[in-house]
């Protein structure tokens, strides 16, 4: 209950603050954007691959899954994953968390990121 309440509140915040970037996020289109991630990240709980499982990503801090070997940079980052922080991170991962180990240059298009985040919000629970 509490999670769904938070998600609803978060949605309201997004509409007012970052409407251009995220309000149009379309989870169906985001599934295609997830192709960028799928070679290394799974959505099932406990299923770490080259990258950590994305299950429950919006309910945890960065670098905190016990059974995944994170970079020191990611462990130290102190980021709490929210649609906003994830949007900033995947824009250019090395800019937000320098020396993190994700081999991904970034997703430049804000609409693509909004779609991807909408998809993750739906599927990572």
């Amino acid at each position, binding site marked *: 209950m509490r999670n769904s309440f938070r998600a609803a509140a978060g949605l309201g915040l997004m509409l007012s603050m970052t409407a251009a970037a995220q309000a149009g996020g379309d989870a169906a289109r985001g599934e295609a954007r997830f*192709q960028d991630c799928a*070679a*290394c990240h799974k959505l099932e709980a406990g299923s770490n*691959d*080259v990258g950590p499982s994305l299950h429950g990503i919006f309910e945890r801090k960065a670098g905190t899954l016990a059974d995944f070997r994170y970079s020191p940079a990611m462990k130290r980052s102190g980021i709490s994953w929210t649609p906003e922080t994830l949007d900033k991170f995947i824009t250019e991962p090395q800019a937000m968390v320098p020396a993190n180990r994700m*081999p991904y240059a970034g997703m430049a298009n804000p609409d693509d990121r909004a779609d991807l985040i909408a998809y993750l919000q739906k599927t990572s629970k």
Partner: protein
Amino acid sequence: MTTKLREVDVVIVGLGWTGGILAKELAESGLKVVALERGAPRTSENDYSLPNIRDELRYVVRHDLMQNTARDTLTVRNNPTQEALPMRRLGSFLPGEVVGGSGVHWSGHTWRWTDMEFKIRSNYEERYGKKFIPDDMTIQDWGITYAELEPYYEKFEYTAAVSGKAGNINGKIQAGGNPFEAPRAREYPLPPLTPILASEMFSDAARNAGYHPFPRPSANASQPYTNPDGSKFGGCQYCGYCQRFGCEANAKGSPHMTVIPIVMRNSNFELRTHSWVTRVVKDNDGKRVTGVTYTNVLNGEEFEQPATMVLLCAYAINNVHLMLLSGIGTPYDPVAQKGVIGKNYCYQTGAGATLFFEGKYFNPFMSAGGSNATIDDFNINWEFDRGPHNFVGAYNVNGGFNTALPIGYRPVPSGTPQWGSEWKRATAKWYQTAMTIGASGSVMSNRYNCYDLDPTYRNAFGQPLMRMTFDYKANEHRMGTHAAQVINDIAKSMNPTKLNPAVARTNPWTVVPYQSTHNTGGTIMGTNPGDSALNKYLQSWDCHNLFVVGANVFPHNASYNPTGPVGALAYWTADAIKNRYVKNPGPLVAA
């Protein structure tokens, strides 16, 4: 003591590209398959993700993914008058030794060999007459056609996520692709990689010279991709650690992240790692094989694995070695020119120039396995008249980078001292400013280039080492000289500040510096048992339930990298086994 295990339908020796493809296809058809891999189990998530990769010392200097020469190696010599000596450290070529084999550490260059190779003797005799081919050049037609292999090339390209631009779709020439390629039924699965500055400069110069540059097709996914089996690829990040490394982004088409994890989920399949196969066991009448013997290299335990069918899918050299050790087929004798096992060993040749441009920044640390441009004007272009130059074969020319290592890649102009403060100054000054133009050339088979068992040296299992007798012949010298001239003409037209010109390889071949892991021949395919070891389905002429798969089946070596036809032939053989052999076991071609 050897423990005899329960019989299975198929035992596969070696789990790289060919073993992985055959394991998946045959297990899915319902056969019980066991694969024996000499190396360790390795996965992208545990072994090739950061920070475990990008380690030049571990992977390049200490050859972490390659054959352990303390256990088994080969002896080498240039000609039969010499005493062959063991190669105690890997050099000229790098056979893989992990789950995924050399398919883990390759660069991904994927070419379609054409009827120019498959009908080589017929082609040259028809155009130039029988006398054009030297007496000691043992080239022969392969017994297969491009048309037969075309769908299997495509299957491999779509499995391995090859990025490229078609040059000929169903006979229609496509702008931007290789106009000389044989017709393909459809486009590559992915568009070409983003060109780097060096390959763009090379392409411009080649175009100005009247040649036809195109992006080199490579199994480096230019964008995220899901292959027809559902294997997921990330997009290439141009990290620069391709050749000799596993891919940290799952962007390089490799068996360990495609066919192997799929067959691992199939209950018909079992993988045993650290399993070194020592022998293929023959039936009493010598007409069939009954399985293999192997040793667990972790504890020395010995096993016999009986099987209805044996598939040799190890590295090309090791496949031939196993045939010789097992006494299958008649060993080749270069003096009498009798026998077939060990015949037609071939390598590749090449020439390269380094160009230095003061003021340019090539960023050589950023590249993909296939971020080069290539011209085939002197390769599969049959309009190019070899007659005046008097050589059989071909070469392709490419410009760009592939794995310019931060420590090992130290381009400096000729004449720079090899160490000391002068060298340090030069390497700092020129590192960013250098690019290369190189040629990769074919090697025609020759009666004296061959394998046999060494009379002196033995491996850790007490078996004779493989002996390789190889040198470049006058044909290759002439071709290399032509290639060097073409390279230097293109290079000079680009007006570099300094140029280390290309020089043909005319000195005797040596096993010491790395050259290429493109060893071919030894158990060649052909049309009859008199001059080949295998029929066109890679089935042994001697034992019909034995198939030998890999570049060891090539009757000669082309200028192209071998993995395209190696992958295509694995799918081709899988179909022949599934659709024909299993229903009616016996020779698929009448001898």
